[in-house]
């Protein structure tokens, strides 16, 4: 916790610099067909109270039965976080009253979680990486949803989410800036999506964060923290941390002290506000749920799940760097989504990996971003893009023509090789044809020819004219060589 302080991460206060210390509790909805302790569906978007079993509604005498798929998903996630898997864990009841909590308690794991300590390697935009400690991961039930906008005098309750499995992933307070926090959540989300254990869809609430923020002078012990509840986008996580850290700094610099409390972030007003103080904190009266036996499995079960895990982003990134000669940055961009990485690999297979990466990242991702599309919606398949890269590699088209070709494939589809053929987009490598064009330009522009001898950078103008004259199809290397010889530029 007292790692060397990076001065770049400090926040400037009125009096001196402050270090912000952040820990996070991420609630990730487990990808599973049915709920954690009932057979009701987890499908999103159903009519209110359509996906509610007798257990979810806490009817008298109903009992929870653990969904084994949720257990497997939690173990897979633990393995993905390089964490200790606890072969014996216990479900506890967390008792409190709330209309969307039908049982009057949430079944969670308190003292004995299913997953213990692990870690996440987080790459930062400046190329640095940090390791964030994971304290634990436990399984718990989600609550339902109160609807306050359906009736002027009453609130309604939708129990579709009631009992859906969540993984609460608790980090150590290892994060030192909003940027690190955002990068951590982004990376965690990537890992979960790779594992297929959580879809990471923050808009649907599949991933929510409780953010613990405190500030201190560098080198001091930890300050008093405030917990910002239920932040539901990566951007808001960053904003909430910045806002909260500045609020705390202002209080301390004014001679005040921070009260430990739970706060809410209001993105509209750009402020955090108190939800409840430490004194108002619930006494959850945790105790082992007597309806459920301790959750026990053997190492062989864990090993079987481990064998079935996909290659995870860190390993994939390292492999892309070593096998395809990519920069760490490019590899990182490509592995951020499993689908992107798969796409890239399909393009790169048997081709120049760097050229493939350039095309995937610059052209394809650029174009997808512009249109607000995901990789799953790309109109250009990996095979098509691979053919474009091949055509460049074979010298059939120039890079410039390739961009036009990409555009045609994007909008019209079709085989890139056939398009090049039928639309006469082939690069002119015939020196005779290029020479004729060059000669004509030199003949028409004697003044420029004279200047070029004094100012060799004018070569570019000649290259441009030649390309224009050949409809962009001339091989740029051949044009350069010819012009240099004819203009007498060394």
């Amino acid at each position, binding site marked *: 916790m007292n790692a060397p302080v990076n001065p770049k991460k400090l926040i400037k206060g009125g009096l001196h610099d402050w270090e912000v210390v952040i820990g996070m509790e991420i609630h990730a909805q487990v990808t599973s067909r049915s709920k954690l302790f009932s057979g009701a569906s987890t499908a999103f978007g159903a009519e209110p109270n359509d996906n509610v079993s*007798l257990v979810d*509604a*806490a*009817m*008298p*005498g*109903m*009992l*929870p*039965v*653990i969904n084994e798929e949720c257990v497997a998903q939690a173990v897979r996630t633990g393995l993905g976080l390089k964490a200790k898997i606890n072969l014996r864990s216990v479900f506890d*009841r967390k*008792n409190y*009253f709330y*209309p969307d909590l*039908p*049982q*009057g*308690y949430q079944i969670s794991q308190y003292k004995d979680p299913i997953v213990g300590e692990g870690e996440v390697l987080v790459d930062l935009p400046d190329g640095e990486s940090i390791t964030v400690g994971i304290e634990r991961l436990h399984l718990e039930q989600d609550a339902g949803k109160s609807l306050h906008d359906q009736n002027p005098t009453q*609130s309604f*309750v939708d129990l579709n989410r009631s009992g859906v499995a969540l993984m609460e992933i608790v980090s150590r307070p290892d994060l030192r800036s909003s940027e690190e926090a955002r990068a951590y959540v982004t990376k965690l989300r990537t890992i979960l999506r790779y594992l297929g254990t959580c879809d990471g869809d923050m808009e649907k609430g599949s991933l929510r964060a409780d953010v613990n923020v405190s500030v201190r002078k560098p080198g001091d012990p930890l300050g008093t923290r405030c917990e910002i509840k239920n932040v539901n986008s990566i951007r808001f996580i960053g904003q909430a941390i910045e806002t909260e850290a500045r609020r705390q700094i202002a209080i301390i610099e004014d001679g005040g002290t921070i009260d430990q409390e739970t706060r809410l972030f209001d993105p509209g007003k750009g402020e955090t506000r108190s939800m409840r103080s430490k004194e108002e904190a619930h*006494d959850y*009266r*945790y*105790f082992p749920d*007597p*309806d*459920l*036996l301790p959750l026990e499995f053997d190492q062989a079960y864990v090993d079987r799940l481990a064998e079935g895990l996909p290659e995870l982003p860190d390993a994939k990134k390292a492999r892309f760097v070593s096998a395809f000669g990519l920069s760490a940055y490019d590899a990182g961009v490509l592995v951020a989504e499993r689908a992107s990485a798969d796409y890239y690999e399909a393009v790169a297979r048997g081709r120049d990996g760097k050229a493939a990466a350039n095309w995937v990242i610059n052209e394809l991702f650029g174009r997808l971003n512009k249109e607000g599309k995901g990789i799953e919606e790309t109109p250009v398949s990996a095979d098509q893009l691979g053919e474009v890269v091949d055509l460049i590699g074979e010298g059939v088209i120039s890079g410039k023509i390739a961009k036009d070709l990409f555009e045609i494939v994007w909008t019209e589809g079709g085989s890139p090789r056939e398009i090049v053929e039928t639309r006469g987009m082939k690069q002119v490598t015939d020196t005779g044809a290029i020479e004729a064009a060059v000669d004509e330009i030199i003949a028409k522009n004697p003044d420029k020819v004279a200047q070029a001898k004094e100012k060799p950078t004018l070569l570019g103008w000649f290259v441009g004219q030649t390309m224009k004259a050949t409809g962009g199809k001339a091989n740029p290397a051949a044009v350069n060589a010819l012009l240099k010889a004819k203009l007498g530029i060394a």
Partner: protein
Amino acid sequence: MTELNELTLAEARDGLKAKTFSARELTQAHITAVEKARALNAYLLETPERALAMAEVSDAKIARGEGRPLEGLPLGIKDLFCTHGVVTTAGSKILEGFEPHYESAVTHNLWRDGAVMLGKLNLDEFAMGSSNETSAYGNVISPWRRRENGALSETPIVPGGSSGGSAAAVAARLCLGATATDTGGSIRQPAAFTGTVGIKPTYGRCSRWGTVAFASSLDQAGPIARTVRDCAILLGSMAGPDARDTTCADLPVPDFEAAVSRGVKGLTIGIPKEYRVEGMPAEIQKLWDEGARWLEAAGARIVEISLPHTRYALPAYYIVAPAEASSNLARYDGVRYGLRVPGKDIAGMYENTRAAGFGREVKRRIMIGTYVLSAGYYDAYYVRAQKIRTLIKRDFEQAYAAGVDAILTPATPSSAFGIGEKASADPVEMYLNDVFTVTVNMAGLPGIAVPAGLDAQGLPLGLQLIGRPFDEETLFATAQVIEEAAGRTKLPGAWWA
């Protein structure tokens, strides 16, 4: 001819099979008896039409030679078991009018085997009580009366609790047998108070699915009936694995009825010295000694054993059970079903609903349970109580490991008391009723109460047998010997009818 409702369940079963009478006749005899006995307040809800419809199905099955194990046998159901389309209240105002859309596993098993439902039986509210006086729908009155100067006293007597309606109904011939539940003695104590037989099977023998929960780690369903054999027959149908209750054992159900006549030759029966509690009436000690002699005469070996942590059982029980209850009863919040009393906001609605919906004893236990689980007290109370529970369990394990097959104790420290006699006293005095029974729940063991005689006032007294886990068979065999030796207790006449 004997009235049909006077028959034992086994006799009625055999009579139906022999077509001596029809299920409809048997059921009608019970319906009539139930109607005449409303003064006892044993039934909260009578379902005569349903009963007759079920009896007709049974008669058709019997006619086709397709009779099932409990075909046509009319039973009463403790109102803690959820019954599909039949109001289930748990004896509480908070569930007044609650109609489940599901059938509890135990009652489902009974209907599967052909039994007939006469109605829902009164109980202490949420099964919390030892006298049936905490029911929100009025106390049950025992069919038994004290004998004073050779005449029956007018003083109404409690049937015990929490399964007081079940015990009273069985004793008064208002059903052939009844379902009951036992968290700290709620089957065995009322059985002992009413001269009936009641078995709490091993924890996990019967599914808890669909039974309103009191204390999940202690609750267990079982039957109350007039004979050991009848209990064995009923438990054979009630028990069985259920994937919907993860604490329910995945074990086949033995032929309990076959075990009834096994005898006790060669068995070792333990007499725990710690159960000789201070202030125990001499009559009870005498009965206990007599029970041991009966078993010895039948070929059992009697040994004194020690269960040293017995004296901590009651205080530990009154921490564990309320702790679980405080959480189990949180769902009765007025939001989704049951009583709702409006308030100015959500907290007000909760407070008004629960204040109006729960009775004093339930509130007391919720408060105790909330207290013992709260921050700063959890380790001092709940954790220590769990440690005691482990020690109690180990006491029994050691006794069984030393060769004891079953343990004989009194079922209760006294015979039944008068209504109101203890209700206003220190609640601990009421809790002391469970002193011999709670250890069995704490250890998850099977325990049976069997009538062994009457006290000087003419009220029934019972003995308890405690068995190894999942060895109810030995309990049936041993209890049968006591039943035969003691002779079946005879009611002093149907004064209520």
